[in-house]
């Protein structure tokens, strides 16, 4: 392992146009995060739909897409999840060539640590489930972990010794901003309009059909509308009386000063709750869980940072003297079963993609693919069929709580 360090290519002088919105489009996507961008891209590429606008209240990919810790993996426990995330991982591997943009996909491996006997059992179960689903996975012992990531404290002198880990070698990180710019550039070339600084405030409807969106730049008609508005989805669906099982929470990350390369892979610990990798430039990038209370402030609590740093320093003693120089938060929407909602709504022509909680970056191309299929055909793709909002009524939940190798 140990990724070669190189710098991203200089962005082209202009990656996308900044057009005035037209009065109507075949498809309007709300939200130019990774998911909105990937959906537009696959609508154009796979379905030949070119009359598309992506409306963004802030700036392109300035929401959670700009704030995440870049981790990509597909080692989820349940069959439905493995199918979705592994579809995404397969696409990640071909996207740099397809988009003609090197966004530094670095398959440096992700270790998910186990610190208790119960976690060992859970992790091994997940690893067997991954094997059955064709997801690459290995169970590694503390001795093997010490070879893979020598800076990790594998002694038993700590409160929660490392008892083993699952390793997914195909997993890793990608430079999130460049992913967004690459998708935007290619979609723009195919005719997609990106309208920044355009907030969607509601919908225009005709009976139970959505006929367009209301925005602060005026109404825009749409044959079909796809929501990819992450933490703010329920604010929009509330206006139609659709009650979604979503709660929005702050989720924080932090980054250190630039350091020499010392950390060769990604390490995640559910139990002491921290995850850490070293970015291409050299910063240590750390994340943990959501703050418990609902919030749209994009500021989390210091106590979360204290807990995650305490855990990080115990796992990586050499980080004790590193300076953390930036912290930030996003607003993530969490569902009761810790799995996303992707599919049709009671309104004809309106489709939702939301509830990704803390983990939607890794799904970006996969969800773009299936959401584009759903919007283009009006029917879910087989991969997102189990992810409809009706599962909360039928009880067919996709309960990844605790199982997904990170607490939500």
């Amino acid at each position, binding site marked *: 392992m140990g990724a070669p360090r190189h710098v991203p290519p200089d962005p082209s002088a202009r990656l996308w146009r900044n057009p005035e919105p037209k009065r109507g489009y075949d498809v309007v996507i709300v939200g130019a995060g990774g998911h909105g961008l990937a959906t537009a891209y696959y609508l154009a590429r796979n379905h030949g739909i070119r009359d598309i606008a992506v409306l963004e209240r802030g700036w392109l990919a300035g929401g959670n897409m700009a704030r995440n810790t870049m981790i990509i993996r597909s080692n989820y426990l349940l069959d439905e999840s493995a199918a979705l995330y592994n579809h995404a991982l397969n696409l990640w591997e071909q996207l740099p060539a397809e988009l003609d943009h090197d966004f530094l996909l670095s398959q440096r491996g992700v270790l998910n640590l186990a610190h208790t006997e119960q976690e060992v059992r859970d992790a091994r179960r997940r690893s067997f489930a991954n094997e059955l689903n064709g997801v690459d996975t290995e169970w590694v012992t503390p001795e093997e972990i010490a070879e893979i990531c020598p800076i990790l404290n594998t002694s038993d002198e700590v409160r929660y010794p490392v008892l083993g880990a699952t390793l997914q070698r195909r997993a890793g990180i990608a430079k999130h901003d460049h992913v967004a710019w690459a998708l935007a550039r290619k979609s723009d070339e195919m005719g997609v309009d990106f309208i920044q600084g355009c907030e969607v405030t509601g919908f225009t409807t005709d009976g139970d059909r959505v006929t367009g969106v209301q925005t602060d730049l005026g109404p825009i008609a749409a044959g079909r509308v796809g929501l990819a508005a992450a933490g*703010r989805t*329920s*604010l929009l669906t*509330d206006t139609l009386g659709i*009650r*979604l*099982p*979503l*709660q*929005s929470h702050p989720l924080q990350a932090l980054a250190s000063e630039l350091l020499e390369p010392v950390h060769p892979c990604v390490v995640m610990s559910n139990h002491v709750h921290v995850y850490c990798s070293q970015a291409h430039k050299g910063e240590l990038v750390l994340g943990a869980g959501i703050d*418990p*209370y*609902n*919030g*749209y*402030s994009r*500021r989390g*609590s*210091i*106590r979360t940072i204290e807990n995650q740093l305490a855990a990080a320093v115990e796992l990586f003693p050499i980080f004790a003297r590193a300076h953390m120089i930036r912290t930030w938060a996003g607003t993530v*929407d969490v569902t*009761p079963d810790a799995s996303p909602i992707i599919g049709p709504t009671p309104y004809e022509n309106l489709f939702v993609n939301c509830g990704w909680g803390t983990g939607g970056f890794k799904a970006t191309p996969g969800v773009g693919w299936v959401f584009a299929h759903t919007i283009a055909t009006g029917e879910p793709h087989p991969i997102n069929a189990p992810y409809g909002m009706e599962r*909360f*009524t*039928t*009880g067919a939940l996709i309960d990844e709580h605790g199982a997904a190798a990170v607490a939500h």
Partner: protein
Amino acid sequence: MLLIRCPWCGNREETEFRYGGQAHVHHPQDTSTLDDQAWAEYLFIRDNPCGELAERWVHTAGCRRWFNAIRDTATNRMRAELPSARKPVTR
């Protein structure tokens, strides 16, 4: 870090509390007549406003009592911290 006012103990740091989600969500009456939709609503669906939310907190590391507060989810400004009440608190 939020500074939260417990109605009994006064201002304390957020670390002393646990969050209990939306306030005034009551177990349904006449459960035998409820359909799946109504059960799903009770079990899974809560308000998620960007603005004021009536919510529950428990002072776990202090008096261990529950209370209701109204907090603005965009600014974290809190007002009207009151003992848990059956009637919605709107003061």
